[in-house]
């Protein structure tokens, strides 16, 4: 199953074994992103199977965040950004007119590189924000607790749920943002370096969370930590200067990469 998901950038995605497998949860075809003249993501194709974790690695500035943000149409907000190619979720292209980016984003959640809690809201309100802002009623307290527990933050904040979200530390804010994304129960979760501001214990908890979430979600995670990629992901994609250099089963990428550049990067020769 895992082997089916991997694909080299030059071959058509997810046809490696040619078997009658389910359509991938997320499939990217010839994706290009420009910021004005800056070609930030070049001709990228890959596929992610349902209930797997894809790690995206690569040196700073190589286009990891840009790639990730293209998957829930965050570039719609950037006037200078231009996106071409296809991103299919459950076989449906996100970049067609018929797709409502609003509904799409409820299915494809995102945790950003920098924590961005809502400063006017309390901790509790932040977690419930996805429900409240969308006008969804129900037992929010329960959702809040469950999401905070999953994000390994509950014990630290359970006595001050009404406090300002900005009163939390940077790492706590990041976990709050994870809880906020979990509260709306997306099908695909995009995480941009979710553990970059966390201590080893919180990081371990988040990695544990990713393992658990895999049962129900499909996860794409950007990380600068090779160890983390190795620990949490089924597949790994290596980006370099906007290009997808290589993608494969995580073990293969770290032990037996096909590309020289991948090998140099994962062994720490550059980057």
């Amino acid at each position, binding site marked *: 199953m895992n082997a089916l998901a991997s694909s080299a950038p030059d071959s058509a995605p997810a046809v490696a074994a040619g078997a009658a497998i389910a359509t991938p949860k997320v499939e990217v075809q010839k994706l290009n992103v420009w910021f004005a003249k800056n070609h930030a993501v070049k001709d990228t194709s890959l596929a992610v199977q349902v209930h797997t974790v894809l790690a995206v690695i690569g040196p700073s500035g190589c286009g990891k965040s840009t790639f990730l943000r293209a998957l*829930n149409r*965050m570039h719609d*907000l950037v*006037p200078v950004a231009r996106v071409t190619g296809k991103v299919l979720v459950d076989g449906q292209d996100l970049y067609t007119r018929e797709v409502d*980016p*609003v*509904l*799409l*984003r*409820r*299915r494809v*959640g*995102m945790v*950003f590189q*920098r924590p*961005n*809690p*809502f*400063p*006017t*809201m*309390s901790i509790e309100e932040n977690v419930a*924000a*996805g429900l409240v*802002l*969308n006008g969804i009623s129900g037992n929010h307290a329960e959702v809040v607790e469950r999401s905070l527990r999953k994000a390994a933050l509950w014990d630290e904040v359970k006595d*001050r749920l*009404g*406090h*300002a979200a*900005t*009163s939390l530390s940077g790492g706590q804010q990041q976990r709050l*943002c994870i809880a*906020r*994304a979990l509260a*709306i129960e997306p099908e695909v979760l995009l995480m941009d370096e979710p553990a970059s501001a966390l201590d080893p214990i919180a990081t371990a908890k988040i990695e544990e969370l990713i393992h658990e979430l895999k049962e129900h979600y499909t996860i794409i995670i950007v990380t600068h930590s090779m160890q983390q990629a190795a620990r949490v992901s089924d597949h790994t994609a290596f980006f370099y200067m906007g290009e997808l250099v290589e993608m494969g089963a995580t073990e293969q990428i770290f032990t037996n990469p096909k590309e020289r550049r991948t090998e140099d990067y994962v062994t720490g020769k550059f980057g």
Partner: protein
Amino acid sequence: MRHFAFRRFMNVFMTVLCGVALVAAFIPLISVLYLVISKGAAGLSWDFFTQLPKPVGEEGGGIGNALVGTLYMVGLACLMGLPVGVGAGVFLAERGDGTVGKTVRFVAEVLSGVPSIVIGIVAYAMVVIPMRHFSALAGSVALAIMIVPYLACSTEELIRVVPTSLREASLALGVTNWRTSLLVILRTAMTGVVTACLLAVARVAGETAPLLFTALNNQYWNVSPVQPTASLTVAIYNYAISPYEDWHAKAWTAALVLLMLVGLLNLTSRVLTRNRLKGAR
């Protein structure tokens, strides 16, 4: 070491210079306060707030109708001006990069610099002439016209400084654009917007020119939108230009009341914008 001594001298010199500028800026402010309080405080009494004006020569009487008239007209102006001004500001910040936005912004910027007497004439032509008489409505239309461009410009600026990351956070939760604009972006900017609203209100509450030939004046109580209405500022004007000594005193006291009203608005803005969340930074 000469350089060091020179630098130290310059440092002291500049600090003193700034201090002098500060004092110079405070002198007019303090003297206004001192003058108004010293000349106006004597006339303050319950009657002054609650009674109608008395004819020349009669003791007592107040400016109750003018106080109510000002509150009434400013209130009406708020009803019309605040939603339009804030709404226009949100529009400018969110969609203001097109031709429509650029035009609206240009007009708003020009309008906020137009002298208030000109706004008065416009309201006169727009409301007073068709209605054939002076009215509270005409006065509040004039005030609303003053509120809108000022508020639109300041709301736009306040919204533009809200970090994009918050908009992204909201959109990534699948929240629609307009809900994001109102419930996240505007809410984040709310502290500033409320302050801007109160400052706009405080500013127009002290305007005389737009009311002179729109709401005119009234010797009696009035809360009908279609009748002429007294206001604090016009009352001050009338009392001040009169030849009577006790009316001059009344002008000072009315000025003090106006000052207190504006001060109260500023104070309210501070109380309202205090962060309700614990530990907020």
